[in-house]
């Protein structure tokens, strides 16, 4: 290893937005979700200790019995808003948080439960529950950003532990987090995956889906599910047209997009068009 002999640099400064050099107060809260995104944080076994040292985790029901209603320097919100109570709570929490980060498909697009947004919610309830009047929920499942301003979003179902770490690191080091908004295809090509669409004729939502997962599914020869949601300028119409030209029927194409991020407008548009 060659050393260029440059004199010592000062340590990276803490984020200039934070006035005091104390440990940042971090909270993790949950709305309508499966818990998988919170688990991603706990699954980062190698880094968990370092994270707990660098950050003061004041609210994280799944991990600690410390409770707090705020204030938070960073608040991670998992889950979609699907009840009146949640709609009120998210507004309260927004007031308590300097930086609010929505994590996961539920919090960023409504999740798979947003399928009910496209249907007749009353009819679903009546057909499933013996006493539908006991279910107190909104007819829609909406992302956090539909209710409050969100400072950052981590996508995925579940989110990527590496992206979460990148976000936390950038907060402490003081630089922009590298969360690129590009297609899964870019990652596939860098990794050297063979395109399942072109070479195999399979369905894959990669071209319109945001990367972040490391092109996980195509790396195992399976088309992308779109679980990180539509990327910027996602031209789902063009991809849906292509699927149609390759012989897929309308309802089959709709099913491709009616998955974890069906609530996102670019995906929802295709589901509604093909119905």
């Amino acid at each position, binding site marked *: 290893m060659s050393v260029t002999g440059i004199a010592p640099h000062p*340590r990276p400064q803490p984020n200039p937005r934070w006035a005091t050099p104390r440990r940042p107060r971090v909270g993790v809260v949950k709305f309508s979700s499966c818990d998988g995104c919170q688990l991603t944080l706990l699954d980062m076994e190698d880094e968990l200790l370092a994270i707990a040292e660098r950050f003061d985790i004041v609210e994280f029901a799944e991990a600690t019995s410390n409770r707090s209603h705020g204030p938070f320097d960073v608040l991670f919100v998992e889950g979609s808003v699907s009840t009146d109570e949640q709609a009120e709570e998210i507004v309260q929490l927004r007031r308590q948080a300097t930086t609010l980060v929505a994590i996961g498909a539920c919090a960023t697009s409504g999740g798979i439960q947003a399928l009910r947004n496209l249907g007749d919610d009353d009819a679903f309830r009546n057909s499933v529950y013996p006493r539908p009047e006991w279910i107190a929920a909104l007819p829609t499942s909406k992302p956090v950003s539909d209710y409050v301003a969100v400072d950052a979003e981590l996508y995925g179902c579940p989110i990527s532990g590496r992206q979460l770490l990148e976000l936390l690191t950038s907060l402490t080091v003081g630089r922009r987090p590298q969360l690129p908004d590009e297609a899964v295809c870019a990652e596939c090509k860098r990794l050297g995956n063979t395109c399942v669409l072109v070479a195999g004729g399979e369905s894959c939502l990669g071209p319109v889906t945001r990367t972040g997962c490391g092109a996980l599914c195509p790396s195992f*020869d399976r088309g992308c599910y779109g679980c990180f949601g539509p990327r*910027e300028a996602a031209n789902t119409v063009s991809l849906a047209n292509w699927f149609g030209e390759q012989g897929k029927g309308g309802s089959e194409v709709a099913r491709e997009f009616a998955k974890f991020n069906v609530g996102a407008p670019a995906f929802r548009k295709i589901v509604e068009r093909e119905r």
Partner: protein
Amino acid sequence: MVAANPAGDAGETYFLRRELVNELIQALATDDREVIGPRVEDGTIRLGPVSSAVDLPRGVGLDNAPGKARLVERGDDRLFDQPVGPDSWKRWTFPPRVTQAVWTDGDGTPAIERRLENPPRQITKKAFLGVRACEIAALRVHDRVLAQGPTPDRDYAARRRDNLIVAVECAVAGGTCFCASMGTGPEVRDGFDLALSEIDDGFVVRVGTPAGAAVLAGLPVNPATDAQFEHAQASAARVREQMGVTLPTDGLPERLIAAADSPRWAEIAERCIACTNCTLVCPTCFCTSVGQRSDLDGQAASSERTWDSCFTLDFARVAGGNFRTRVSDRYRQWLTHKFGTWTTQFGSSGCVGCGRCITWCPVGIDVRDELMAVAPPPEAAVVARPMIEALPVVAPLPPVRHEQHGTPPVKTTVVDTHRETHDTVTLRLRTDYQPLINGKPGQFVMPSLPAGASPAISISRFHNDGFSLTVRAAGASTARICALERGETLTVRGPMGRGWPVEQALGRDVMVITGGIGLAPLRPLLDWLIANRDHIARIQLSYGARTPGDRLYTAELDTLLLSGVIDIAQTVDRAGPEWLGRVGVVTQVIDRIMCSCDKTTAFICGPERMMQATVDVLHERGVPDERIWVTLERHMDCGVGLCGHCQLGRFFVCKDGPVFSLAELGPAFGIEGL
């Protein structure tokens, strides 16, 4: 059978029996050389390590069509009868991810290892087996772009040297191939160590270099007979006929550049998904991005260079905006660059006709169709001049010397800081590095702190012992730079770019028109003008800002105004009652003055819309384009013309600019989304 020893006999032709291919591979693999070649993998043809002839795709073909690639089992013995797959050799010469620099501070002693500029000495030598004619052309294009410019990419040069190129002349035309149209194939003419042409019972082998001859030595080969040689030639001719010319290229660059306003771009955007597949499979695309990684404790940080694409949203982003948000603009940039402005930049077309972008586009967009629609050839044109006829044979690459790069990182010390506005700070930096002290007005540097991004910042003043930078805290990295205190260090690369042509001011009236933070790159020019006052006629500075509190260098401007050395007119967009100066746009400072401005030189800096409005006024006043100079801003990752982000038409804003005359820019100035 005579074991010929053709050492030194380049140009000789031999015949290799089919069953000896394995021996050839072993011969290539001597001296720990890694042999890379085509294989069947994941349902298509991929390039990868080849250890014996069994690994090669025997009897397998690849049916390429727009958006589709299907393997075909023919069941014969032919080894190379398939067109290219998605891989190109750039995966080895220009890898998708390369660590650029590593910074560690484990025990309190920070160390920086700059790997991109000092590539590892031990890169495994490779032999590329099965390089098609189009791919040889692509390697040469990359040589031109990456290794023969003013700042060569040393990592690329290190990976490219010492490779053996064993070419294969195509005997089948792929469904999306158009090398015949681009003048790059199908015949393999040069650029190889050995070239194989597959015929029925073996291969006609041409020797291209002594290295190739050395590989053949020890293999039982006979000189090829005339019949064998003609058979090989006929095979290539058949491919040429099969392929035809599907893209007339005569005059294409000019027509394409002139088609900037074609409605076809918006039509393509309806189909294009901007997924980046075309650019990442393209063997000549070279755009990269630099990303930062660091650990949670700040003990270690690294920067990484990765393949990027002009189709991503962030590609043209700058602090305060993005030059190419629409997909139609991004598609126009790619096609116009690849087939048009590349020619001006590098002396050849960027496209080699391999067809990968057509095959691997998930929605099957065919660039040939799009080119014909956007820039249709005039009726008479049928067959075209090939666009790569002028490329030289592989030029020797510069030797890899482990010395400082053209713009090495330099440590500077903060001597003074001055807050100009609520978010802008001027840092005065001390250094001994002469090129920085002797830099030109208008040049810029790229400062960085550990684990931080490296923005391009114009030098705002030169001193005997250093220089000053005026920095706006637009994001986290610049905020950290603004927060530096006296005594702290800042690493800087530079000076970069082409500066203001100060000699154009001599003997003339000078107008300097700027706004906001745009005064910073003009301040060194003003210093020079004032120092050479006696040789310049009238000097007029028009300076606009959003509000009085957003002006830079206010105390200095007041002093200058009082001294009368230059005329200064300041204006703001709006103000409170305490401001008794001018309120209004800066263009209207000069639009009603009665002067004959044809002897004026103008220097302008500001947001492009403001510069455009200013240029309109200057045109009305009669100032000619050769004497209107602007400085442009684009997204820069490298600053030296290698990462591709800052392109504007045929220019790299970082090295051809950032200062340009309007005459040079021509129509490139002011086109939205260019």
